[in-house]
């Protein structure tokens, strides 16, 4: 029981500019479910990709069944008995279940002709062992997500895996499907398979795992026995950071209420959320990943459609808006993934800034270059953006400067309310404090600002008031002297504790 089946010793992985894994060690025993937790960017996925042969480590060693091994690639890992079940399923929808289970490792004769009967037979056996309700001939594209996941798990049977790694397996499952998955995991466990379970959902982790290893900023914070620990401790290990930056807070000059929401709900994402924000106020929205923060603001902005609740704009109730209506009213949402949603990387600052407001910048559908340039110059100097010129492609700029252009883009519509989702994720420290100063400036000019962040010092540093969210609900509100790290951690973890009990 105690002899580890897989040991990771001092693994280090460096990406340009980031140390994704820093001397990471942990081990997996046969028949245990070992949780790997940490905030986004902590290095969980990188570590798993190293184990599954998708990344080559820059240092350290992997000891498997007592011997050091090199994992040459994904197929090699699978054949050795280490199986990664991806967050995004890695299946071919047009192929059959049997063909997917053995994807790339189909049984063939010397001439590459498939041994179809053998393929079907072995696949059926794996499916039966798992108690799947579908046969090997079904096209994978016609299966539900949960069933597709079972197809991936069936690979564990088919390749007699000794280590199975689940990366956020319940992300798109219903409660029923989740229960079935847990039964399957317990089945694997009973047969001595070592399981790594990566998840953001704490109740699941306390439900199914035996040990928990916490990663933060690429380093192991510690490994604990699940039964000897509590949510509070794990949460603390995950997010306890040191205050390493100086924050500017806007002067408190609050005006009228700009936005209020009352009882806003969306099934499975957030429920019964009510709050308001005033002119000149910075409202922080804190919670761990998966708490429903982004979903909430997307619903306010109209990217998602809420099921119930009312939104008030400047005191009057409005219909749930579309994004266009939200923009026209004076809302701006700066999304988290700026590369996907915020910027056209091939274009320069001039074109990106005018992109959401093409009407303003054109006459009879012809773009006015001079207007564009004037606006570009205004924001480029106001936000101190470093570029070589108005047409330098976004892709050549640093993350911090890109983020400033995202802000410029929304600011030039002169919004009344600006929502910033993780405004400083992935940008360097210098740019971070520039963004923080900017937030304060905007608020002092009378804008209402909502800041979503997973970084506790940032939320505490820039906000006048903080709402904490957990599992889709606003669980607490802190002002003034109550705004401390301790209180925020308690709010986020206690709620989860009562939920899991």
């Amino acid at each position: 029981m105690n002899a580890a089946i897989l040991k990771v010793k001092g693994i280090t992985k460096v990406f340009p500019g980031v140390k994704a894994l820093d001397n990471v060690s942990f081990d997996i025993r046969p028949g245990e479910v070992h949780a790997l937790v940490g905030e986004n960017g902590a290095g969980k996925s990188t570590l798993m990709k190293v184990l599954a042969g998708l990344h080559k480590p820059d240092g350290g060693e992997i000891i498997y069944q007592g011997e050091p091994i090199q994992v040459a690639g994904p197929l090699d890992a699978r054949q050795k008995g280490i199986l990664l079940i991806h967050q995004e399923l890695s299946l071919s929808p047009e192929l059959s279940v049997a063909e997917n289970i053995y994807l790339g490792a189909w049984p063939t004769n010397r001439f590459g002709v498939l041994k179809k009967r053998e393929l079907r037979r072995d696949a059926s056996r794996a499916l039966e062992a798992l108690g799947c309700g579908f046969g090997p001939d079904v096209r994978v594209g016609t299966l539900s997500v949960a069933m597709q996941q079972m197809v991936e798990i069936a690979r564990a049977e088919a390749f007699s895996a000794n280590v199975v790694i689940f990366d956020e397996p319940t992300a798109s499952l219903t409660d029923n499907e989740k229960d079935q998955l847990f039964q399957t995991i317990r089945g694997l466990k009973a047969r001595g398979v070592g399981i790594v379970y990566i998840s953001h959902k704490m109740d699941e982790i306390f439900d199914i795992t035996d040990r928990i290893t916490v990663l933060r900023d690429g380093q192991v914070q510690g490994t604990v026995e699940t039964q000897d620990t509590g949510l509070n401790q794990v949460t603390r290990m995950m997010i306890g950071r040191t205050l390493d930056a100086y924050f500017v807070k806007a002067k408190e000059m609050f005006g009228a209420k700009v936005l209020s929401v009352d009882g806003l709900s969306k099934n499975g994402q957030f429920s019964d959320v009510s709050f308001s924000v005033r002119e000149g106020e910075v409202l922080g929205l804190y919670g761990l990943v998966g708490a429903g923060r982004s979903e909430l603001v997307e619903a306010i902005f109209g990217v998602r459609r809420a099921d119930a609740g009312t939104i008030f704009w400047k005191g009057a109730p409005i219909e749930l808006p579309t994004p266009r209506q939200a923009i026209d009213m004076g809302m701006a949402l700066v999304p988290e993934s700026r590369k996907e949603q915020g910027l056209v990387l091939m274009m320069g600052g001039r074109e990106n800034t005018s992109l959401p407001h093409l009407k303003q910048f054109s006459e009879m559908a012809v773009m006015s270059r001079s207007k564009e340039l004037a606006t570009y110059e205004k924001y480029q100097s106001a936000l101190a953006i470093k570029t070589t010129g108005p047409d330098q492609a976004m892709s050549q700029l640093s993350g911090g400067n890109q983020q400033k252009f995202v802000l410029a883009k929304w600011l030039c519509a002169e919004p009344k309310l600006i929502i910033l989702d993780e405004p400083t994720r992935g940008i360097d420290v210098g740019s971070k404090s520039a963004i923080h100063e900017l937030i304060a400036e905007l608020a002092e000019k009378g804008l209402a600002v909502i800041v979503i962040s997973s970084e506790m010092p940032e939320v505490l540093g820039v906000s006048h008031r903080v709402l904490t969210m957990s599992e889709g609900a606003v669980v607490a509100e802190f002002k003034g002297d109550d705004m401390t790290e301790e209180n925020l951690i308690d709010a986020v973890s206690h709620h989860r504790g009562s939920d899991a009990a």
Partner: protein
Amino acid sequence: MSHTMDSRPNRALSAALSWLLRNHIWVFLALTVVVFSVASPYFLTVHNIGNILTQGAFIGILAIGMTMVMIDGEIDLSVGAILALASALAIGLQDHMGVWPAICLGLLSGAALGFVNGTLVALSGMHSFVVTLGALIGIRGLVFVYTGENALMVQDFSYTEIPEIYIGPISITAIIFFAMALFFQWVLSSTRHGRETYAVGDNIEAAHGAGINVKRHKIINFTICGTLAAVCGILLSMRLGTAEPNAGKVWELWTIIAVVLGGIRLQGGFGSMWMTIGGVLTLAVLRNGLRLLNTPNYVELMVMGAVLVLALVLDKLLNHGGDER
């Protein structure tokens, strides 16, 4: 989760229906056959059907290779030019080395050009549309250089007798087409290479993650496509007795039309030779039928364009419920 047990004939019926839903081009084909049979007394005769099969076989052979490449999610625009080069080599080299070695060299030229296409696509990361567009122009230029801008004539007339072999009303050309279509259908459904083709076209990340050598795989399929283009070119030169430098011009487009008409999608991961055969025959029937009715050439083009769009709308409605954005 228990499957409801259908009674056997019901299940056979639903299997047949779902086959027709995926291969709806065959319904379309049947429809066009009925329409032309009514419209022209000459259409539904053994002789005419034999003609249709022979005429369709040339685009058909190109379409087989194109299908392999398109299921991979790629495209090959150079097949018309490869065809012209192979036919020119097969005829031009006969005087120096005899018929069969010349044919072999023609085939080899197609394989080599397909290999180059595939290598460029796989190693450079450029899209195959761009790579083979370049090949289309470059190879055509090569043909003009080799032929000196003149049609090459056959000297050894045993060469032109080969396509005169018939089994019943069916020409050797048509038989070669069907035999190869069936062979590659078998490759797709029963070999490792076939599974790889679907896997690569469907979800290239998953295929790569599963340890499939995606690059080598794509090179093989482009080589197949080039070789088949050469086969088509040689058969064409046998039938015509000449190799024209302009042979096969815009045939790459007709080939893509036939394949797409069959229901194969440009984004890859999906399709079969049954679909391709259906598309090829439908195209051949339309051409033949419209000519029997003495339709002017431009009307013929308009009708074919309309049919193509109609077939694609039908595909969208039948197979996606029309709900895709």
